[in-house]
């Protein structure tokens, strides 16, 4: 057991928490928070796991930097979409769309 392994296990927990948030919460901004938390968990696994045996490994660190930038891009785009959606429809969640759901029986 090293500190790196501890952090990657914490990453696994964060993934679980974030997944729960994404599936369970309905408010779109909360879903976005959950996505970011799950992302942080994935990044922790990505860096922590390879560093368990050797020392610091710059390759996953660089990958995580790339990942963080992609995540902020997606988050910022989602915020723009959510605010526009809220402006047009007054809703903050995707529920309440039963009428336009699959035409067939649920």
């Amino acid at each position, binding site marked *: 057991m090293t500190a790196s392994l501890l952090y990657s296990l914490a990453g696994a927990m964060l993934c679980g928490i974030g997944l729960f948030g994404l599936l369970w919460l309905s408010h779109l901004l909360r879903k976005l928070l959950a996505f970011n938390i799950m992302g942080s968990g994935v990044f922790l696994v990505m*860096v922590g796991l390879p560093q368990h045996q050797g020392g610091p490994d710059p390759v996953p660190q660089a990958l995580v930097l790339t990942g963080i930038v992609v995540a902020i891009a997606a988050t910022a785009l989602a915020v723009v979409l959510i605010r526009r959606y809220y402006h047009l429809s007054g809703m903050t969640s995707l529920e309440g769309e039963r009428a336009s759901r699959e035409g067939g029986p649920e």
Partner: protein
Amino acid sequence: MVEWLLDGLLVVALVVTAVAALCSRDLFRAVVVFIAFGVLMAVAWVRLHAPDIALAEAAIGAGLTGVLLLDAVSHLGSKRLRAQQQGDGRQ
């Protein structure tokens, strides 16, 4: 030993803030807790010998994402409030 204590505390704090950010009733508070989560993540990256990510996380994860979300929360809240007030006024 002290290091282990620090790491353990940090991991517990990370998990607690993550849960708190998702379960908080007030959206504004949820985002503030999320910013705290970002700061803790930055510390965790320092502990993982990844200063580059720590810098990026502090600037992006805690800073920019936080401001972006806070701005959105205040917008989403204020409009609903205004709509409610208008509705009250009409009644």
